């Protein structure tokens, strides 16, 4: 497997407090990488550095490099909007726009200049099918997305993010606001999506990482403690702290 994202010596400060300390890791293409660790360990912050969503927070300072497709995304001349089209994101709380289901999915393609109705119809259908929610929503495309259940909303958000044909989809605790059945559906969906996309998922749920991820990275207090194949991480972790965390001694 080749690496699509290579992170080297990444540090991040919120004002004067350092939230990420010398993170170096690679993210393999077309696979699922999970970030685990206790609350406040920096896993979500790290995820957001991968498509520069932290740029929006005032007083953030970042050093080190994140190479995507061989290019440092924090280097000069990088178009952040283009970057975010290629590295999309799904958030913790389902956040469909207050528009119809159709307009939610078509929002991204329209932003990138697609105007043809036929083309948009095709993208909307394909994206909803890829997100395994087409059958549930095909008769209510014109209805407001806010009327859907939480699980449906989150799958719609996934459909919306893959509608712009990204390479990488970042998921920030996508199931933490959902019930177990919706969670199972999303996990199933993520497993399907890795055929076409590189998936990076932050989760506070270790079973979720164990079930879904090919590679797991454990974060603690802003440090990347350990990263490896999920099977190996959960059976024979190298670091004592990893073992304590996955066996539930803290977290």
């Amino acid at each position, binding site marked *: 497997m080749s690496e699509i994202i290579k992170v080297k010596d990444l540090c991040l400060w919120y004002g004067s407090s350092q939230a990420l300390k010398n993170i170096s890791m690679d993210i393999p293409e077309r696979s699922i990488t999970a970030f685990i660790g206790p609350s406040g360990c920096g896993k979500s912050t790290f995820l957001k550095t991968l498509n520069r969503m932290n740029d929006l927070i005032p007083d953030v300072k970042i050093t080190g490099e994140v190479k995507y497709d061989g290019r440092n995304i924090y280097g000069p001349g990088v178009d952040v909007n283009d970057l975010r089209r290629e590295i999309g994101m799904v*958030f913790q709380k389902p956040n469909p726009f207050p528009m119809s289901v159709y307009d939610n999915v078509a929002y991204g393609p329209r932003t990138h200049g697609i105007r043809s109705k036929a083309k948009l119809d095709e993208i909307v259908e394909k994206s909803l099918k890829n997100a395994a929610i087409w059958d549930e929503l095909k008769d209510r495309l014109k209805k407001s997305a806010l009327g859907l259940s939480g699980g449906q909303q989150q799958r719609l958000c996934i459909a919306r993010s893959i509608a712009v044909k990204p390479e990488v989809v970042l998921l920030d605790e996508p199931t933490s606001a959902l019930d177990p059945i919706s969670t199972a559906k999303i996990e199933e969906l993520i497993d399907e999506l890795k055929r076409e996309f590189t998936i990076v998922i932050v989760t506070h749920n270790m079973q979720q990482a164990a079930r879904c991820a090919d590679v797991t990275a454990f974060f603690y207090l802003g440090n990347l403690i350990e990263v490896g194949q999920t099977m190996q991480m959960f059976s024979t972790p190298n670091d004592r702290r990893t073992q304590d965390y996955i066996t539930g001694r803290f977290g």
Partner: protein
Amino acid sequence: MENIVHGVFLFLGLITVAFVLLITVYLIIAGMPAIGELGLFNFLFGKSWGPTYAVPEFGILPFILSSVYGTAGALLLGVPVGFFTAVYLAKLAPPKVKALVGAAVSLLAGIPSVVYGLVGMLVLVPAIRSIFNVPDGASLLAAIIVLSVMVLPSIINVSMTALEAVPKEYEDASLSLGASPIETYMRVTVPAAKSGIATAVVLGVGRALGEAMAVMMVSGNAPNMPSLFESVRFLTTAVASEMSYSSGLHRQALFSIALVLFLFIMLINAALNFILKHRKEG
């Protein structure tokens, strides 16, 4: 004890209701006789106002149209400026600029209308006369410009509050799809705040329609059919300028004008309630 306090609050609350009722009933009682005598159609659509003519004329179409055109014109200028200012302040402005402009907007809201009128009279009216080369600058245009400035504070403040109340999650979602910040504000934030922005516009309409003092000072106050460079009289100023010396049917007709103005304002309020109700449901 609890009951007494409750009763006091109820009583104080009812005072407002009582005044609204009092004004409504009084205006209807005082405004109806002239309309009855002159005929509703002749009163509303008569093009000539001349209560002191040998054969007095009481047509208020010039006032109605002046008020409508004046308000529409003020919004045509004021809404774009106010709207973009609100977007800038709510989303783009650095904190220091936001504090400065915000303070200026609050100050603008607090300036008494007679001061707007005074500045309009001394600066705007001569400027219009010389720029457009017309005999008198006191005109509908002058009123429109003064009103457009007067509606800015309510449009800016109310729109800004609505824009700031849009959940940040919507914006994050848009940005993460590769939309630029400006695209995000215009295509996600503004539509999500549209009922608040509509409220702002309606409040602006109410402000412009109800203003008398500043309009009287810059519009020339002649009862002409409205035209941009002509002296005009609004519904408000028609009542204000003749009330002191009128009597008989003339005075009753002024009450009728007030009633018409009141109905316009009621209409605005109904529109506002409609929007607010829809916001709750939407």
